[in-house]
């Protein structure tokens, strides 16, 4: 009843407002912009409709925004150390950044993709690739934390990654740079015919999401740029764009632009999977890191793996074909039906659309136009579904709205172009500010896009915001795509470089978001579950401090008996079991970051005291009304001093009654 009453009241309000102002009209120019403002306005306390996971590019991170508001909620550290969350600084997460090259504290994060079931977004994980030191990471969408990173061996410039198949059977990682396989000392100019490009299929365990390299396909030494999975009828296939089929090794801007057409490689991964499952492929020595973060021990482990299964294309006839595609294609995008594969030749005057059904027919009829390294090249006309003529300059990436329309970005002409699948006619074009790279429609890489908004990510902003010296912000722009014409709604700054993004309706994720970690489920090796169990233990020059934190004190908070030259471990457990009550801890002179510890969690940092004295530590997160009182002291004595180890709270033992 009350609801009805309220609705009636609301309707009355609206009609009164409308009628009271109706005669004046609204011819003012401001009317349009105010409607854009209303469309992106999310009132205080209200939630956004979509999550957008926007890659941080060379920041190595993944940022979480809300759409349509463009509000930033979290920057998830993935491939780069992050002082805010102690990622890569605390003892628990350091193993996450281990690689065959040692501890690598940075990477270039590029293409997030959300896990799928039956071709639709399921909101369990986001995968993202590290370009530089090839890695694939998995972010758990209950904790919004990076929980697994697997290094990709025999790869260099892990760019055509990390896209998932329809049921997240695989997350796929293709190399941009081809390299000698196996790696060896050889002249660079002997590249042609000798370098290889590895396409890596990483299986994802349906139960726990655990990643494992199933096989690596050793392709010819081209550059593999982007990739997307087939879906629907084309499920079981994966498509990779290539450039530098010239196999140039220098001045690629000229030498890799010689061929009129490069290829989109079509890979029947189901066929190769079957081959591998029947014992096919060759086990080859390798050395790559597999890093896993355990939510119960709150600790990551790094394991070096020593073997990888290699498959050469010639071993599996009929599994790999090349579709000629004009001029160094970048985007390689599959429409929701799985029938169309859109190739965006960076230098091409048109967009090329291949047809999956025509491709299958061409294969059956053996409509080949030669071969490359034993891989059949299909006749261009035989797979061609159509082309979008004169669409713009510098096409990069296409996504789909699920209503029969496609949206392609054009870097050089700085625009998003809407066109129709099947008729290939351009319907609308809107400028971006400026030089757009990728774009994203929530679910745009799935059978079921949520075609309400498109988010365009720009490489250059120049005068669009308040200037901040030579380095200015990068940006994303949100367009409403519910009408025939696109409407620019919002222009917001993002952490750089916003390379690519994945979006999903908020309702698919937010109910699963974890609030706290259960203290009773904490299996950390150095957990302290009550104040009475807090202690300080010396073992040679190593000192382990088992410390607790609760509003608004540490236990213990006075520690004596530490000596210069000790290696001091602070193992700190947050005893809170209340949502959004983290505590932090920082120690003067510690060569790490602070720790930010969630309720029920344990984290560890190391401190090497170098100077005699009494040194403070304190809570870094404004936890409570008495946050500023949350502090303690450590007494550091000279090496060899006879000051005994003691630890107290309020002048008494921590377990004093």
């Amino acid at each position, binding site marked *: 009843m009350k609801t009805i009453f*309220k609705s009636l009241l609301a309707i009355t*309000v609206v009609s*009164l407002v409308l009628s009271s102002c109706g005669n004046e009209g609204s011819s003012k120019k401001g009317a349009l912009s105010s409607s854009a403002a209303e469309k992106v306005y999310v009132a*205080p306390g209200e939630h956004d409709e979509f999550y957008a996971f926007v890659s941080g590019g060379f920041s190595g991170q993944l940022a979480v925004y809300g759409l349509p508001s463009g509000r930033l909620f979290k920057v998830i550290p993935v491939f780069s150390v992050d002082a805010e969350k102690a990622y890569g600084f605390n003892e628990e997460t350091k193993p996450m950044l281990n690689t065959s090259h040692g501890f690598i504290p940075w990477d270039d994060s590029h293409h997030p993709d959300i896990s799928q079931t039956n071709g639709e977004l399921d909101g369990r994980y986001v995968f993202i690739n590290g370009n530089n030191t090839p890695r694939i990471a998995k972010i758990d969408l209950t904790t919004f934390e990076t929980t697994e990173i697997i290094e990709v061996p025999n790869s260099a410039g892990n760019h055509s990654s990390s896209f998932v198949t329809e049921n997240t059977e695989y997350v796929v990682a293709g190399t941009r740079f081809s390299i000698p396989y196996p790696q060896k000392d050889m002249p660079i100019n002997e590249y042609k015919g000798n370098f290889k490009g590895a396409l890596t299929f990483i299986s994802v365990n349906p139960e726990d999401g655990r990643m494992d390299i199933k096989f690596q396909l050793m392709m010819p030494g081209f550059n593999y740029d982007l990739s997307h999975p087939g879906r629907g009828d084309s499920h079981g296939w994966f498509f990779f764009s290539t450039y530098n089929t010239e196999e140039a090794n220098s001045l690629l801007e000229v030498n890799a632009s010689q061929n009129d057409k490069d290829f989109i490689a079509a890979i029947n991964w189901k066929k190769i999977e079957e081959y591998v499952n029947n014992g096919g492929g060759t086990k080859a020595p390798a050395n790559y890191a597999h890093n896993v973060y355990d939510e119960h021990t709150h600790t990551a482990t790094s394991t070096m793996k020593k073997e990888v299964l290699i498959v050469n294309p010639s071993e599996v006839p009929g599994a790999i074909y090349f579709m000629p595609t004009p001029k160094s294609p970048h985007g390689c995008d599959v429409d929701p039906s799985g029938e169309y594969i859109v190739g965006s030749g960076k230098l091409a005057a048109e967009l090329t659309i291949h047809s999956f059904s025509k491709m299958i027919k061409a294969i059956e009829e053996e409509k080949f136009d030669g071969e490359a390294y034993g891989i059949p090249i299909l006749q261009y006309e035989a797979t061609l579904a159509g082309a979008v003529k004169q669409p713009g300059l510098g096409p990069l990436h296409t996504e789909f709205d699920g209503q029969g329309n496609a949206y392609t970005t054009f870097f050089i002409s700085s625009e998003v172009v809407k066109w129709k699948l099947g008729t290939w006619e351009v319907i609308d074009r809107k400028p971006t500010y400026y030089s757009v790279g990728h774009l994203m429609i929530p679910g745009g890489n799935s059978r079921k896009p949520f075609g309400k908004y498109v988010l365009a990510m720009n490489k250059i902003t120049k005068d669009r915001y308040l200037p901040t010296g030579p380095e200015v912000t990068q940006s994303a722009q949100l367009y409403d795509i519910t009408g025939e014409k696109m409407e620019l709604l919002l222009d917001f700054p993002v952490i750089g470089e916003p390379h690519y993004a994945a979006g999903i309706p908020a309702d698919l994720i937010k109910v699963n978001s974890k609030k706290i970690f259960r203290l009773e489920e904490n299996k950390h090796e150095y957990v302290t579950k009550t104040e009475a169990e807090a202690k300080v233990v010396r073992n040679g020059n190593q000192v382990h401090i088992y410390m607790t934190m609760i*509003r608004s004190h540490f236990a213990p908070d006075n520690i004596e008996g530490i000596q210069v030259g000790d290696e001091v471990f602070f193992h700190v457990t947050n005893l809170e079991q209340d949502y959004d009550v983290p505590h932090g801890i920082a120690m003067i002179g510690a060569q790490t970051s602070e720790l930010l510890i969630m309720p029920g969690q344990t984290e560890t940092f190391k401190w090497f005291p170098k100077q005699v004295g009494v040194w403070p530590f304190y809570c870094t997160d404004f936890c409570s009304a008495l946050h500023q009182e949350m502090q303690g002291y450590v007494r550091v004595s000279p090496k060899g001093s006879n000051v005994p180890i003691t630890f107290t709270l309020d002048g008494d033992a921590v377990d004093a009654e």
Partner: protein
Amino acid sequence: MKKNNLIFSLLTVVAIFITSCSGGEKKQEVTGAHTEVVSEGLGQSAVEDNVSAANALQVAKSLDDFKTLVVAIEAAGVEDALVNVGPLTVFAPVNSAFDKLPEGTVATLLLPESKAQLAFILTNHVAPANYPIKQLKKEAKKGRKLYMASGKYLVVENKEDGIYVDGTKILKTVKVSNGWIHVIDNVLVPVE
């Protein structure tokens, strides 16, 4: 109460819109109305959370012993403070404690015009601090008084049969997510 507020605001909006369109000079009022509608929101006590341990208000509401106390908390409008991150130590009088007050006191305190006085009395039951029994014993031993949210100090004593605050015995203690509830059988009326 909140529903009435909402209706009132909406009516205000209507009224202002009507007047605003009758002439160009009422612009300021439109802005004012807009702000009022937007800032309308529920406090922290409205946060839905079935995962965290229960906070002081949730625990009080769940127990029949605190029916009167909860009515008083709501009348005084201090719900949000009791769910705050704190830390808080609440000396919570049971229903019978209120019965001990002079006749008519509770009814008077629950009148809208007594809101400030009621809030003052309630804040005299809350220490912005983390005082488990163990710590209260220490406070008694070390002769430290408890500073209450009312600005007053309470004396804590460690007697043979238990801990006393302001001469009232602590009957029971409940750990809550944002501190502690110590159950007492007297209302701690602040002395001027």
